[in-house]
């Protein structure tokens, strides 16, 4: 399971579970993750959970900016296209800081192995 934790002064204030195929982030009340703050657009970004087509049992998470006014940033880089998220990536929605955590990712083997 993955989550997006909002940080204020490096302290987690709220954690949102990424628990559906498409999670919408924005200021309007119909978003799955609602951030009521002036730098956030009504519909700001979308996070998708996509089962990996080539590696059974793995889910990839992707974030796409929904043409927001103040941009979506991953590790301080403004994203211009759909961007894959890795565990512990810093995500910025307008001026709001988050940390993306994918608990399953840490369980993966780091050495080479064969898909069989």
């Amino acid at each position: 399971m993955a989550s997006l934790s909002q940080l204020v002064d490096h302290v987690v204030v709220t954690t949102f579970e990424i628990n559906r195929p498409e999670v919408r982030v924005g200021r309007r009340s119909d978003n799955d993750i609602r951030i009521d703050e002036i730098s956030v657009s009504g519909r700001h970004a979308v996070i998708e959970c996509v089962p990996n087509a080539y590696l059974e049992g793995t889910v990839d998470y992707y974030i796409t900016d929904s043409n927001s006014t103040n941009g979506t940033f991953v590790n301080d880089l403004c994203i211009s296209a759909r961007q894959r998220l890795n565990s512990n990536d810093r995500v910025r929605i307008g001026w709001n800081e988050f940390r993306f955590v994918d608990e399953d990712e840490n369980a993966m083997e780091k050495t080479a192995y064969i898909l069989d």
Partner: protein
Amino acid sequence: MELQVTGQTDTGAVRSANQDAIDWCVEPSSGQALLVVADGMGGYQGGEVASRIAVDTVMEVLGPALQDPVLREPPGSESRAALVQSALDLASERIEGRKAQVPDLVKMGTTIVLAWVSGQRALVAHIGDSRCYLVQNNTLQCLTRDDTVVQNMLEDGSIREHDVPNVPFRNVLTRALGASDAIATFSEVLLAPGDQLLLCSDGLTDALGDAIWLTLLSQAESVQGAVQSMVAASLAEKAKDNVSVVLLSTN
């Protein structure tokens, strides 16, 4: 066209064992050469055993074909490819055989990339993520497509090149010797005098960006010097994995 080949393998700056295996041979009389790199994996001594079996089997099966004067008139690429695949099938069988004997080796497998040069024609075969590059007219072209999950994701647009170093499963192979799917991918290129073929394990490509390769290769005064400087440069970059390079030069 004169063929010169040399190679070098190094444990790298971090690992304690070298699981890569390399070999090559040149037959000036028939104008043929064979270059092989294998990158083994799978715990304990497994990787070393698998890559060694793969390289030795390829040399054993294909070596006589290089010397055979009957084959001086190079056989068509189809029959050469069939012979290569039969060598790889035998290597696969031998790896399976060792796994059955030694329980500690049950997870072993290996990549393999080989180039069989016959006159101007080079037949390239690979399984896994070891690569073959063609150096031609001061340009570098990768002739092999990695059999990896990450390569599939790059091609379907899921990720871009700069994402690759961060993907946690970037080392997962979709094909390998020692796995059920051990069918090699083949390609053929025509070599002109001055061209080079470079075979390598991913230890080289992970440590050393290919932007500097052409400089290192062109500055070297010999094939040996070129291989040494490529390996030395990857070690200077603190190569995390074993580094192997086998280089063929023509003139």
